[in-house]
């Protein structure tokens, strides 16, 4: 039997072999080093996901300086609320100690976001007030100390 291999087939096989080899070599350089360490993803991404800076410090950081407020707050109904819920992100202030680097909200709208009357809020979860009737025109903080809400001022 004659060993006849069609020449176009051998030429094609060569062309494909070269192409596939080139692809695999190129791939070797392109796949990121940490890929596949823990799964089908770049292992380095786990570390990158830890990098972003924090903006909220947690109230223990606040208590390091503001011990008086810690004691005050613990005695009244806002005891379970963390400082940054109202004061906003505190990390900048923790580092700089500047009063301008933290919020001190006192508007009716702000307090209202928790306390305004809404049928969807459970009465057990929060005391609700009809802002259209309750002391209109006054800021809540004029009568209520946010750290000791039931100790009325004046």
């Amino acid at each position, binding site marked *: 039997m004659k060993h006849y291999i069609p020449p176009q087939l*051998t030429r094609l*096989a*060569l062309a494909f*072999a*070269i192409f*596939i*080899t080139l692809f*695999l*070599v190129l*791939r*070797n350089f392109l*796949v*990121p080093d940490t*890929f*596949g*360490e*823990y*799964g*089908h*993803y*770049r292992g380095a*991404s*786990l570390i*990158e*996901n*830890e*990098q*972003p*800076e*924090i*903006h*909220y410090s*947690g109230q223990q950081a606040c208590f390091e300086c503001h011990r008086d407020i810690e004691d005050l707050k613990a005695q009244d109904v806002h005891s*379970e*609320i*963390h400082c*940054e*819920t109202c004061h*906003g*992100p505190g990390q900048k202030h923790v580092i700089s100690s500047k009063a301008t680097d933290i919020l001190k909200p006192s508007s009716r*709208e702000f307090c*209202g*976001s*928790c306390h*305004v*009357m*809404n*049928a*969807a*809020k*459970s009465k*057990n*979860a*929060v005391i609700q007030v009809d802002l259209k009737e309750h002391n209109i025109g006054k800021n809540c903080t004029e009568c209520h100390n946010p750290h000791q809400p039931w100790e009325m001022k004046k």
Partner: protein
Amino acid sequence: MGNEKINSSRRKFLKSAVAIAGATIGYQVLKSSPVLISAAEPKDESLPWYGIVIDIQKCIGCGSCAKACKNENDVPVEPFFFRTWIEQYTVKNDGSVDIVSPNGGIDGFEQRVPDEDIFKSFFVPKMCNHCAKSPCEQVCPVGATFLSPEGVVLIDEKYCIGCRYCVQACPYGCRFIHPVKKVANKCTLCYHRLKKNLAPACMEVCPTGARMYGNLRDKNSELVKFLKEHTTHVLRPNLNTGAKLYYNALSSEVR
């Protein structure tokens, strides 16, 4: 005769060429087999396996969580991108359900329906469910979203190609394309905070403790104790996503 000589030397050349090519290909295949074959995830039992509980009875719709999340995580303030948001459900006496989420709930909620028409009403905070059998992770074509060893579904921002398949695949609507970074983005359970033993921003600021997180592997954790003592549900259980966000007091109207 001359032809046979040419044929045999040609054959020898081809043989050696194929041998070299085969060796190169074989080496490449072996070298990259951890990637070609799906790498098994190491089950490191010493790491926590994070789960979340949201207690609907405690949520008062103040919006602190959604606001804190945007502050913490570099999410644009426009009302189109949210890693977490709150929905207000109002089930009326006529059976219809009114659902709203103005600016994700960041500015709080108004009561839109008069008391006498309301059958019941409640708030439902939403966030990424960090599914154990996550459909978003399943469909990512390049491996840019993944389940971390701690059970947190994360995104590799440097690898995402922005095909948006994951956004389509998430049944809960938690994913979006970041308008500036132009890659997929979603709640990461504040992974960067978890690794420093800090609570996720939304949980840090929730005034009523409606949001909880913890280690599902730790039988003594607050989270597991809560799951034991309450009846909880996940969203879309029929889709079998392995969602690890358990809702207490989830009403049947919620999707």
